[in-house]
């Protein structure tokens, strides 16, 4: 989780990713940010996030994103 928070904070240093829950719904991160996050996750976790998983439910918070990574690692 720490690594993921670092990835996110690198893109938006001004956002508190530990508590924010509406990253997509509130327009805090956009499609450009998402691509950078996906590329970073691929690099750091060696997990490829498929396009069908790029939905608000998975990207609205660091927690949901971490759960997605764990699910993909498990599959």
């Amino acid at each position, binding site marked *: 989780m720490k690594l993921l928070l670092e990835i996110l904070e690198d893109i938006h240093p001004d956002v508190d990713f530990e508590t924010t829950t509406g990253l997509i719904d509130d327009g805090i991160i956009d499609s450009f940010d998402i691509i950078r996050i996906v*590329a970073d996750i691929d*690099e750091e976790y060696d997990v490829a996030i498929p396009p069908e998983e790029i939905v608000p439910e998975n990207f609205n918070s660091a927690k949901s994103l971490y759960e997605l990574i764990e699910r993909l690692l498990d599959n």
Partner: protein
Amino acid sequence: MLFTSYSFLLFVITVFISYYLTPKKYQWILLLCASYLFYGLVSIDYLGYIIVTTVSTYFISLKIHKINENKKSYLIDHKDFSRKERKNYKKKIKKQTKSYLTFGILLNFGLLGATKYTNFIIGNINSIITTLGTNGTLSFIDIAMPMGISFYTFKTMSYLLDIYREKHDAEENLFKLALFVSFFPQLVQGPISRYNDLSKSLFEGHKYNYATVRHGIQRIVWGFFKKVVIADRILVAVKAMIVTPDDYKGFYVLLVMLFYTYQLYADFTGGIDITIGIGETLGIKMAENFKRPYLSRSIKEFWRRWHITMGTWFKDYVFYPVSVSPWMLNISKKSRKKFGKAIGKRVPVYISTLIVWFATGLWHGAHWNFIVWGLMNGIVIIISFEFEPSYKWFHSKFDVKNKLSFKVFQIIRTILLMSAIRLFDVYQNVPLTFKMFGTIFTEFNFNIFYDGSLLQLGLTIGDYLILLIGLIVLYSISIYQETGSFRVYLNSRPQQVRYAVYSLVIVFIIVFGAYGVGFDSTQFIYNQF
């Protein structure tokens, strides 16, 4: 059959009455018949295309869905599989479904491509042949684009892709799928609805509800107001200035920019208002396609508010799949190693942006103008992304972000930028567009604003006044809509007030609609895409 024609109005009224006389259970069948009748009346020769798209998508989606369902039960029956075995099995199944999906996509985009782009490709090949000085050119083929093919193909392919992605079940009734594909109000200019969003209210049937029907009619009237009072009136002046561009340089081009921007806005959003309004009168809810785009403070925001269903289509089915594809991630990794983290991170984002905007331009039409228009949007978005740190620095030094004057400045800047890019829509070719835009900075014919030149464009002082009133009304309602629904507000007013507003708007449409000599009741601009 024009959306604004009497025959279409009569058609809609007949469907409306028949719909509520039909038992709820069978209403969707009536809508299917009406949709096919509409298609047949307008374009019977091309009915075959929409049938091929519907039937092929139906069988392919069922097959993919069945394979996925079998996969689920197989995995339940083989819980003892190791992680690797599960992974391999899933991979094998994915390969199977992907081959069906690929076939469906190639077939349907093939139909779209063949009817929309064949002559464009032939034309380009001929230009190359001529440039190389080789003898002989290819002949153009006699093919026309089936009505609404860009819209219904996109709608249908999103359905197929969502089945592939296991987002929802496949529709088992061929005729229900046929209604989703051909639903007449959105056939010619969208919105490009997703099956998940539209199917429930499209198929379930509705009892007559006065409030919903009133809501729908209000929206239709508002759409007519935008189309016939504003769009069709501005069209006259735009046409006058672009037919012989050499006579209309300098500040005329600035006028073309702004006039065309509001013409297209009133035309397209007016058409969508009529479409969504018709749906509302039948109790059917469609996705919104616009959220006051000309109140946007940046291009990125503009594209989140303009033609939303097309934008999200490209984002979900082109931008994300391209940018997170293995080869793109590979490029990203390599460029990170070679050029460092900062540049490496930008590579996938920028390549995907340019690809998606190239495709968006191409979707709008088989013409280099549209392709350049699309790429210009992508380039502006990339440039503004690069400027983000400077914006942040500026806002940390100057506290203007929430000041009204700064917001207005940002809105005007966005309008000017979008209007300038939109010039590619109006002039005949790309070099001419650049040349005409350049004249704004070389020919300072400011006199056209006061020497009566503007009255030579086919519009009288009265027309300009009506346009001004129309745009003030448009902006006032848009600003109101930022915080609430104007129709909800109107419907909460006393009956006398409501009827006064209705009468005023209807009289305005009838008296000041752009009909008669010099004005043509025109097809919607987006019909041709």
